[in-house]
Every structure is written in C-alpha cells, then in structure tokens.
C-alpha cells in the first residue's frame, strides 16, 4: 500500500494495477499530498463528480514508486470547496480551474482562479458536468476576456500567436512576452477544442464509451482505448483473455512506433531539414499502411474494447510485422546516424528548450518529456500490467532535458518498441477464444485504468450509478502535466526556437481540452 495515514482506509481497486482507493475528509487532503510529495510522488489526475444529494466528490490520483491511490473527498453540496493543492503540485492548478469550470467545485486559497476550459462558450454560473445541467440546451455566449499576466519593462512587448496558426495544427493560444527575440515569459491559453467529451460519456453505454475514449486524442487512440477498457474491467472485476492482452500491447507499441517516427520527422522539418522529414514519414506511412492491411484501421481505432480486442492476427500478419520491424530497425539506425552527425541540426537541438531534472521533478513533468529530463517514470516498468510484466521493458531516459534529449529518448523508445513487438509476436498464442465483451457494468462501481501511451501515462477513471450506467468518465492526458512545463522550457530561449521546442514535447490539445 503506497500511502499510510490514520484517517485513510484503502481498498485495492484492480489486479491489473497496483491501485487503491479511499475516502478522505477534504481537510486531510493537504497533509496526504504533502506526504506523497515528500516521498517523491506525483499528482496524476484531479477531477470532480456530482454525487448529490450527498454532495460533490473530488478525486485526486497520486502515484509513487509503489503504486497509485485515488483519494475521494466529499465536498458539501452547498459550498463545494477544498484546499488548494497547486502549492504542493503545481500541475494541479489547471486541473482545479477546469474542475471549477465544469463542476463548480472550488479550490480555496488558490492563487489563480481564472477560467480555463470555459472561454466564453457558457456563463460562469452554469456547470456542464452537474447532473441538473441540460446538455441539449443551447448556451448563451459570454464575451471572451482572459487576463494574461503582463510583463512590464522597457522594450518588452507581447506577441500573440494562435489559436489559428499558419499550418494545419490544433488550436491553442500562446502569449509571448519578449524583449528582442528573447522570451521572457510564455503563457498558454488552451481549451479551444473543448467538446464536452466528459458530458457525452454520461449518456453512453460501456461499449459506446470505448469508441469515444479512443477519440479523446486521436494520436493516442490505443492508449486511451486500453486505459478505458482496463478501467471498465476493474469495475466489472473481469480479466480479459491473455491473447487479448498480448494483442493490446502489440497495438500500443505500434502506436508508439508510428508517433515517434512522425515526431522525429517533424523535428527534422522544424530545423528545415526536409530530408529527415520525408524519410521518417515514408517509414511512418509504411507502418500505417501495414496497420490498415492487418487491422483494418491506419491509426488502430476501436481495436480495443472492454473485455477484449476486436483485432486478430494470423501467421502471415506476424510475418509482415516481423519484416517491418527489421526494415525499420535498419532504416532508423541509418537516419539516427545522419541526425547525430548533422552539425546544423545538432546545433539547433542541443541546449534548446532545456528543462532541468530538478525543475521537471518540481513541476511533475511526466511521460516521454519527463524521461528526457531524468524523470524515470514509465508505467510499463513501474506498474507493469499484463503482459508487460513478462516483457522486461527497458526504460529510455536521458538527463539533459533539451530538444536533443527528447529526440534521443524517442530513438531509444523506438528501438525498444521494435524489440518488444518481436517479443510480443513470439508470445502471441493462436487460440482465438471469442472475447467476452463487457456489456453492462455493476452498479455504484469505480475503476481506474492507466497505460503508458507514447506521450506519457494515460489515465481513465469510470464511475457507475445505481443502475450500472456510466455516470462519470474522466480521461486524463499527460499533456495536463506537461503543458505548463513547456512555458518554463522556452524561457530565455528565442522566439524562433519555440516551434521546435513545442514539437519536441508534442503535447495534445484535444486531450487536455476534452
């Protein structure tokens, strides 16, 4: 059990993960969080749910080396307030603001209460995730005003960028305060692709929800679908057949390979080395085409469902993947050699967008970007769920925390994923037991799933009501933790290096805007 506290009684959630849950008074939250923080733990997610007439619930997921705990704090229905956690975990700031925008639960004594996901799309008095909120009603717009933090001084000026960009990327607003070309401060304003995903889940069945979970952030569809399935399985207390688990790992590693290839190409493109871009994208395209041939979908959507998988693989398919792995291994080694020896490219990568390990630890940088700043967290290693417990995953870490480090970690993980795919294929047995799909969840259940997607840990939590319907589903993207760190990574770099730094993190807008 990862946390001990006299007022906390923990119950184990699922066999798949070392995860516990327990109820706690809001007043004790501070002390427990501090205890976890002092022990080197991190905040993974924070969200709220409407449990009226009992009140509102605040859910906080913390992890340390031994496991993860979901703390549930009951807040009064009349005055739903809880102590501010952003002083202990800076990453909590935006999650708390989003929780207020969506549910109206309020972090007391917090230093930042600006709206986060709301923008002007609905009025400050209405909270979409409350059960008495009518999702079908059309909402009155409110004029948009967002007070950015001002930097003053001689020669300081602001450059607003986005949400509409010159290229076809997701929308996000970046407010630079610069002097000359040097960045003094960057402030992000996200939430432009808020789609009400969490509200939509409430009216879905468990299988429909799997489809939606796979679309929270399209580039991580496998990770989300698996995390959702794992959460549903932990509610239903079901263990999927081992073939399905091997299959899921295969798909997850293929997603990682495709995304890392794409990102490495983009990193080349952002320093105008279009050659690297073209080569890596030829390889990525090959992976996507093989996905389409073998599994019927280029990005592997809807292949993982609660209870099992809908994908199968025959001997010929195995052979195709093995050949693809060999080809990629050879090609990527050549390309890595070119990247490593290209003076112009390395000059742009090295010491650009540095996040020191200490800062990364303070801010809770996670996932791939975290591993590039010596934050050795990988859910496939620390909390190896089946089948990763049999796979001996080797974590790729680096210390420097610059763009070069994030490229190196991507290369390391790419090669490791190719190795893992071969291992998985060797273990993938041929019995094709019909998967027992979960059609109905037990009443008043709660489950959590966490999967190491290519970007970082993807968490999905599922709550069911007295009839066993989905009453609250919270998908949590690692981008929540990492977006704020990007603001620190660009400080003292120059404006033209921002796109490169941004791309080296490659965070999800859709995943955090929900």
């Amino acid at each position: 059990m990862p946390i001990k506290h006299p007022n906390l009684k923990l119950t184990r959630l699922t066999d798949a993960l070392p995860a516990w849950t327990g109820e706690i008074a809001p007043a004790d939250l501070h002390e427990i969080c501090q205890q976890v923080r002092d022990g080197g733990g991190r905040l993974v997610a924070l969200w709220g749910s409407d449990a009226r007439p009992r009140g509102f619930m605040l859910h906080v997921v913390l992890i340390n080396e031994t496991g993860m705990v979901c703390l549930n704090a009951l807040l009064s229905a009349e005055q739903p307030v809880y102590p501010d956690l952003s002083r202990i975990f800076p990453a909590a700031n935006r999650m708390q603001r989003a929780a207020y925008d969506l549910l109206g639960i309020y972090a007391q004594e917090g230093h930042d209460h600006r709206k986060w996901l709301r923008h002007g799309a609905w009025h400050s008095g209405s909270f979409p995730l409350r059960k008495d909120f009518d999702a079908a009603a059309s909402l009155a717009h409110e004029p948009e005003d967002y007070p950015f933090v001002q930097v003053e001084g001689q020669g300081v000026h602001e450059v607003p960028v986005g949400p509409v960009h010159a290229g076809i990327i997701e929308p996000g607003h970046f407010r630079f305060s610069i002097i000359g070309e040097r960045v003094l401060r960057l402030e992000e304003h996200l939430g432009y692709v808020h789609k009400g995903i969490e509200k939509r889940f409430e009216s879905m069945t468990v299988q429909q929800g799997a489809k939606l979970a796979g679309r929270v952030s399209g580039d991580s569809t496998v990770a989300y679908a698996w995390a959702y399935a794992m959460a549903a399985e932990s509610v239903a207390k079901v263990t999927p057949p081992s073939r399905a688990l091997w299959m899921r790992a295969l798909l997850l590693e293929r997603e990682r390979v495709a995304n890392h290839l794409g990102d490495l190409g983009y990193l080349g493109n952002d320093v105008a080395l279009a050659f690297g871009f073209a080569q890596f994208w030829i390889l990525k395209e090959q992976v996507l085409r093989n996905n389409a041939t073998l599994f019927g979908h280029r990005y592997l959507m809807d292949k993982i469902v609660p209870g099992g998988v809908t994908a199968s693989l025959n001997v010929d398919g195995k052979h195709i993947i093995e050949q693809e792995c060999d080809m990629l291994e050879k090609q990527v080694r050549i390309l890595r050699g070119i990247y490593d020896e290209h003076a112009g490219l390395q000059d742009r990568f090295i010491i650009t967008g540095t996040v020191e390990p200490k800062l990364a630890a303070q801010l809770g940088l996670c996932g791939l970007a975290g591993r590039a700043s010596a934050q050795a967290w990988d859910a496939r290693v620390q909390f190896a769920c089946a089948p990763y417990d049999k796979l001996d995953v080797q974590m790729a870490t680096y210390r420097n925390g610059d763009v070069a480090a994030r490229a190196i970690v991507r290369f390391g993980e790419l090669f490791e994923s190719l190795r893992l795919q071969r291992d998985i294929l060797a273990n993938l047995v041929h019995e094709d037991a019909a998967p027992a799909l979960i059609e109905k969840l037990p009443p008043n259940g709660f489950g959590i799933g966490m999967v190491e997607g290519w970007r970082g840990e993807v968490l999905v939590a599922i709550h069911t009501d007295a009839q066993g319907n989905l009453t609250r589903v919270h998908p949590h993207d690692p981008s929540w933790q990492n977006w704020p760190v990007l603001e620190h990574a660009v400080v003292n770099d120059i404006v033209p290096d921002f796109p490169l730094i941004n791309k080296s993190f490659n965070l999800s807008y859709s995943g955090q805007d929900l």
Partner: protein
Amino acid sequence: MEKYQLLFAVLFQLAQLVLVVVFAPLLTGWVNQCQAWLQNRSGAGVLQPYRVLRKLFSKDAVIAHNASPLFRVTPYIVFGCMWLAAAIIPIIAVDLPFSMAADVIALVGVFAVARVFISLAAMDIGTAFGSMGARREMLVSFLAEPALLMVFFTASMISHSTQLPVIVDTLAHHQFVLYPSLAFAALAFLMVLLAENARIPVDNPSTHLELTMIHEAMILEYSARHLALIEWASSLKLFAYITIGIALFLPHGIAEVGNWAGLPLAIVALLLKLVLAGAALAVFEIVSAKLRIFRAPEFLATAFLLAVLGLLIHFLLGA
C-alpha cells in the same frame, strides 16, 4: 547595317524583358523539383509555381481594414524592382540598350528599394508577425548588403568598371585567366544569395511555422493578386541573383559585342548554367539545416570576410 544593329538590340532587350518574367517561376519550380527528388518525393513538377500564380490571381484579395495605400502598392513596386533587376543583367548578350544602366551599385540599390517597401508594408498592418519579420529581414539584409557590395567591388577592380556589361565582357572575352580573388568572391556571393533569397540555412521558404519565419512573416497578410506578385517577384529575385552569379563567375559563352551569330550558343549555355545552378542550390539546401537566427550574423560576417579577402587578394596578386 548600323541601324539594323540597333533595332536588333532593342528587340533583344524587349525579348529579355519578356523572357525573364515568363521563365523566372520555372527556375523556382526546377529548384523545388530537384529538392523533391533529393528527398525521395515525386514532387509537384516544375510548373507548380505557375499553377500557384494562376490560383492566386483568380482569388479575391483580402486586405486588413487598417491597411494604408502603402500596403496595396508595395507588391507592384517590389515586382517592378525585381523585374527591372532581372531584365538589365546581361545574360545572353552584353550590348543591350538597358545594359548600360546595369551598374552594380545601382543594382544593389534596386534590391534595397524593394526591401524597404516590403518591410514598411509588413509593419503597416501592425500585426506582431509582420514587425517581427521586418525586424529580422533588416538584421539579415543590413549584413548581406555590404558583403554583396564587396563581391561587386572585387569584380569591378578586375575590370575597372562598375558596369555589369563591362565586367562580364572583360571576364568572358579577354584572355582566359583564373582569378583567385573571384573564387573567394564567388563563395561570399553564394552565401549572400542564400540569405537574400530567404533560402535555407538562413530562412526557410516552405515553412508554415510563423514564429520562425523571416521573409514569409512579412507577407503573411497578403493574399490573392498581391501575394501572387510578391511570389512572382521572389522568383524574379532568385533568377536575378543566379544570373548575376553566372554573369560574374561563369560568363563564358555569352555573346560578344556585335556577334549576333553567337546568340544561339549563348542561349544554350545560359540554359545549361541555370539548370546546373538550380540543381546545385537544391543540393546545398537539402544538406543544410536552418541556422538559429542569431547565427545568421555569423554566417553573413563570414560572407563579408570572404569578400574582403577576395579584394585583398586582388591587391596582393593583382588578379
């Protein structure tokens, strides 16, 4: 016979005027196509710049409410400057009527006029990107300009003239001599060409990252016919620079004064040189990454240094 000579020359000048404006986008298309091949892509074909121009000319222009007349006239001025520059450079024959106007210092001035207008227009709208682009453009060009002048001076020293036709005639038709000073100048000129034409490693003409742009940031607010003229002007500028490079460093094959029979050979030689120069530019760009913006001054300082070295060598060796 004398008056036919003059008629011929005028006709030829008019032909060059039309030909450069028609074929300049083809050179851009060729460079892009070479790059595509080098990236293992099939590419859009050498005619793509023409398709882009046709598309842009058939669109309606969108202009910011607070744009002043300067913003509207700038594309025409820039286009005019580049057209003029490309038309007066002796590329096939040296004794064309306009050629006498082709003084290298004046040429640098023509480029400067275009730059001033486009930078002012970029700041005219008041967007952050326009000003940012204009600022960076000025940073790059105020360093590139002296290097370019130094290159021209080296060539002028050899031929004792700042007139391009005289320089070309001296280098191409007097006895064949290798000028070590020109080798340095050529290297410096290549670097200036890359910087002034917004090519890699100083700028990236095909980027969509608005924060990294130099030239593109200045023209973000332009659309339709205005953008078409600016794109066309960019093609003309690249054409002008490459032909200046050819005129200064590879003039061999150009028709002599009064030698109209040498024209067909001169045209073939020019085409060959343009094809090779375009391909070489593509190769150079493909192997380079874009410099961090504060390395651009170092890059251009190197160009200046090389040009000065060329000049010194001319004084030391007299060649």
